[in-house]
């Protein structure tokens, strides 16, 4: 049966090539845009370099202090994370890192902008950066406040040029000389929790890391033994936060959460606005508006094509085909059309992603079509084909046998 439908669908497609071209153009282009968007989202949120243990990690990115008249929100301080998040019993490890900040360095009268990040030693155990040479600094080196630096491949190229190994050499940043102890693969800026050009031990920070202020722009990553511990850690941290004394009289509430990566990544900096909800709404609205026009267009063309086939439909009905069978047949035909369009869309997407990657719009962000993206593309295709097929199919099944046969 399906084979028959397939044959009919192909025959219909070849009958009026102009209409087929319009339909395929609309479908493939819509899918291209949605797939490029999916590839982008998948890369930005789903890329697990360097935090490969993301599925058993929780992230503390923000501390909010609320009072009757004012509200302040920022990353927690090193002291706060070390003292409170460090007191949790269930997590195995606590990685602490500052946000990335900018500074300059000057080599041979050339300026290089440098982003730096302070980390503790456990940070390097939790996150699995790919070291092209050397290794990270360890606990002892951090405690001794040794002036060590892990640098990114880009930084190595910008500062040292074409030298093959740089471990043991000195890099000057922020007017201080650091000894390079490792070189890691670049992280794109979009992974802002782990991105930086150089990574330094927190003990060499110019600001006092023992300052007892609660807010201070650091991020904590809690590593659990197994996935099942995550919710326990989340609750334990909430309890600890509940008991934290107020920092000043201006405030009566302290909020801080240990959340999964996505929730932390999309944090809006405000307790009352959920970044995940906002992101989903915006993406959903964009996808809806984008698909609306091509869908109406496709419905229009489909109806035109069905009316063209009224004699065929009349004949089938006269020989006893039920409306249901006809609707079923037409939707299948339409799905075949959309899948064909989807195939072309995939080809377009590959070309467009190539162009985006070669233009390097966002440094180190290599977009690619992987299995997830293709799967989402297929789902979009099916939804699209279904939406644009239902109404014309319903109209077709309503055709009166006599008028349909008389039309020719």
């Amino acid at each position: 049966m399906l084979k028959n439908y397939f044959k009919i669908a192909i025959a219909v497609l070849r009958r009026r090539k102009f209409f087929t071209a319009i339909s395929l153009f609309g479908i493939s282009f819509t899918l291209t845009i949605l797939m490029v968007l999916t590839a982008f989202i998948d890369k930005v949120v789903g890329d697990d370099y360097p935090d490969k243990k993301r599925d058993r990690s929780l992230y503390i990115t923000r501390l909010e202090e609320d009072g009757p008249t004012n509200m302040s929100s920022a990353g927690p301080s090193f002291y706060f994370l070390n003292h409170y998040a460090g007191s949790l019993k269930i997590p195995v490890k606590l990685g602490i890192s500052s946000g990335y900040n900018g500074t300059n360095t000057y080599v041979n009268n050339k300026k290089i902008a440098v982003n730096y990040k302070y980390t503790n030693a456990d940070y390097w155990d939790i996150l699995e950066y790919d070291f092209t040479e050397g290794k990270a600094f360890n606990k002892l080196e951090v405690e001794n406040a040794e002036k060590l630096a892990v640098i990114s491949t880009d930084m190595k190229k910008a500062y040292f040029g074409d030298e093959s190994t740089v471990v043991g050499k000195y890099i000057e940043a922020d007017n201080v000389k650091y000894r390079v102890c490792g070189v890691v693969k670049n992280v794109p800026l979009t992974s802002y929790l782990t991105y930086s050009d150089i990574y330094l031990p927190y003990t060499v920070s110019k600001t006092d890391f023992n300052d007892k202020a609660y807010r201070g722009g650091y991020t904590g990553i809690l590593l659990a033994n197994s996935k099942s511990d995550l919710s326990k850690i989340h609750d334990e941290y909430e309890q600890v936060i509940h008991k934290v004394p107020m920092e000043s009289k201006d405030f009566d509430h302290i909020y801080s959460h240990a959340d999964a990566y996505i929730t932390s990544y999309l944090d809006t900096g405000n307790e009352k606005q959920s970044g995940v909800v906002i992101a989903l709404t915006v993406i959903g609205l964009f996808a809806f508006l984008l698909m609306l026009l091509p869908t109406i267009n496709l419905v229009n063309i489909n109806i035109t094509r069905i009316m063209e086939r009224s004699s065929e439909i009349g004949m089938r009905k006269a020989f006893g085909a039920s409306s249901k069978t006809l609707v079923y047949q037409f939707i299948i035909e339409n799905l075949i059309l959309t899948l064909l369009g989807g195939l072309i869309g995939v080809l377009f997407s590959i070309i467009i992603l190539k162009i985006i990657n070669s233009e390097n719009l966002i440094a180190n962000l290599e977009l690619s079509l992987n299995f997830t993206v293709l799967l989402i593309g297929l789902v979009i295709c099916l939804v699209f084909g279904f939406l644009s097929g239902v109404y014309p199919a319903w109209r077709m099944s309503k055709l009166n046998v006599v008028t349909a046969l008389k039309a020719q």
Partner: protein
Amino acid sequence: MLRHLFKLIWNKKKQNFLLISEMLVSFLVIFAVFTLLIYDYQNYKKPMGIDNENVWLINYNNSLKIDNTDSLDQYYETLAQTIKSLPQIKEISFTGDNTPFSQNQNTGGITLKNKRIDNINWYTVDDNYKNVLDMQLVEGRWFNKGDDVVKDRPVVINADLKEKIFGKDNATGKYIEDIDNKTRSLIIGVVNAVKMKGDFANTEPGLYNRTDTGSFRWMGKILVKVNSGADAAFESQLYKTLANYMKSSNVEIEHLDNKLKNANYWYLVPMIVLLIVAGFLIVNVTMGLFGVLWYNISKRRGEIGLRRSIGASGKSVSAQLVIESLILATLALIIGTFFAVQFPLLNVFDLPAGVYLTAISLSVLFIYLLVLICSLYPAKQAAAIYPAVALHEE
């Protein structure tokens, strides 16, 4: 004639309903795109309000631990003197975090005659700020040393805020109060509004406060105007001087030119993506409309043949078909305009009404043009139908 055409359209209402909704959605998409384009273009034409050439921005994280306010001021006074003594420096100014073309924003509110005005950009700047950025005064004067001893706190507002609260009247010499009506400030001057977020962003109401004795506790930005000859070698010298003086701070030097380029880049990329998407949507719709109109006309060969055989000219047949399509477009546009007009009426995105109205008229024109182009060729084909051939088929 028109009545007759309406009847013809009504007879095929199901088919035409879909065509109308397609035109309607296209109109709304085009309306959105035109609104954005016109708004951006209007902003682009406005003057920047500052001269960002040869202005550098120094960021330092303020981690100085000096409790005594006098010695704190002394510390930064020495820093200012040190920087100014360098050869290529023309002028320097300490400022709050919301510098031009940065992501930082700081807003506040004031009260004027018991009416509260919110969402005012709140700047904290010193006496040299205007000269470093070459801002233009509209009336009154900028801050100077004499303001140290005046009784009322002096503030400078920008032209946008002046227009918002005083209209055409002069603002200099008038008083405003802070939100809780506790302290009042004297407006001593009005400056041109600045496009703080780049070439394509709009100017916003702003209020400039003079730095006071406690400001150095939290400020972390210095703007410096340098000579046009200042190069990386000099920048490195400036950097060393700063880093050696501010031992407990991380220092970064940025160029306002680059920050502007960056701000524009992040504005243009989404815009270009949007234009490409809208362009493809329009091509899609054009082809779809063309196909459907063509098909509809070829289905009506009998009717057209009959009209030709009783004496209608080819021209009048084409005209009938084109006018029919245009009537469909008109119906779609009436509904579309009804929705579009709500934007200026309800003041949805706080854009000037002129932008919306221009966008509406341009989109109406665009859709008419699109439908005209799509229907011309099929109509011409219809005019070429020979009555004998067409009627023979029936």
